[in-house]
């Protein structure tokens, strides 16, 4: 099916929690399997999901440096929204997922990208938080604003805010 004829799904990924990211990527990959054109728009804490796992995050100014130090992000550093218990709960959940042969968020990102899911970072929050394009992993297609999101959402049958 041609890209323009496909039904569209747009997801706003606002949260940066492991469980919520998982829900977002499950729906995104399923929709892509069903022949839908999927875009995920990452904003605020959601940006943590698509930050590079390796190296530091470069930013300008003391407050931004502090923010990106405390809020480092990266798919492997996400925490559960509940029962994190200083990391113990999150570690246990990751263990359960692994034992169940379930893909990690990292693997979901790669899978989604291979399936043609578009990953977009919100320029406004990137600007405020001092995140440059180089802060994100290579699967991220572009940086865009709210108008781009609304342009996609207007044409989508389904839009989710997670």
């Amino acid at each position, binding site marked *: 099916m041609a890209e323009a004829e496909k039904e569209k799904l747009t997801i706003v990924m606002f949260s940066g929690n492991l469980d919520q990211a998982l829900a977002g990527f499950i729906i995104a*990959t*399923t929709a892509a*399997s*069903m022949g839908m054109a999927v875009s995920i728009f990452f904003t605020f804490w959601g940006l943590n999901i698509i930050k590079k796992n390796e190296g530091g995050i470069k930013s300008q100014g003391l407050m931004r440096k502090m923010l990106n130090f405390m809020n480092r992000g990266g798919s492997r550093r996400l925490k559960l929204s509940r029962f994190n218990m200083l990391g113990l709960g999150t570690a246990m959940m990751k263990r359960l997922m692994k034992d*169940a042969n379930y893909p990690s968020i990292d693997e979901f990102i790669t*899978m989604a990208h291979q399936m043609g899911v578009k990953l977009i970072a919100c320029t406004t929050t990137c600007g405020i938080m001092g995140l440059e394009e180089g802060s994100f992993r290579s699967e991220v297609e572009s940086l865009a604003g709210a108008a781009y999101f609304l342009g996609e959402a207007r044409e989508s049958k389904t839009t989710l805010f997670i």
Partner: protein
Amino acid sequence: MKADQSLDCVGLYCPMPIVKTAEKIKELKPGEVLEVVADDRGITQDMPAWCQATGHEFLGTEEKGGEIKVYVKKAHQ
């Protein structure tokens, strides 16, 4: 039911059986039947829904023990 190809999804949870089915169906020719073997109950509802969305034909479900087999006929390229 007779199938041209089989896909083993035992031990996999949603959405992996659907993701793998969407990938596997590309290998079949129109008119051929794909058998998907799974043990996650979700597939009994998910596969008919996937077929409705993609236009492939859902042929039915067979259950034996904890093993679920669903059959899909490829309708188009």
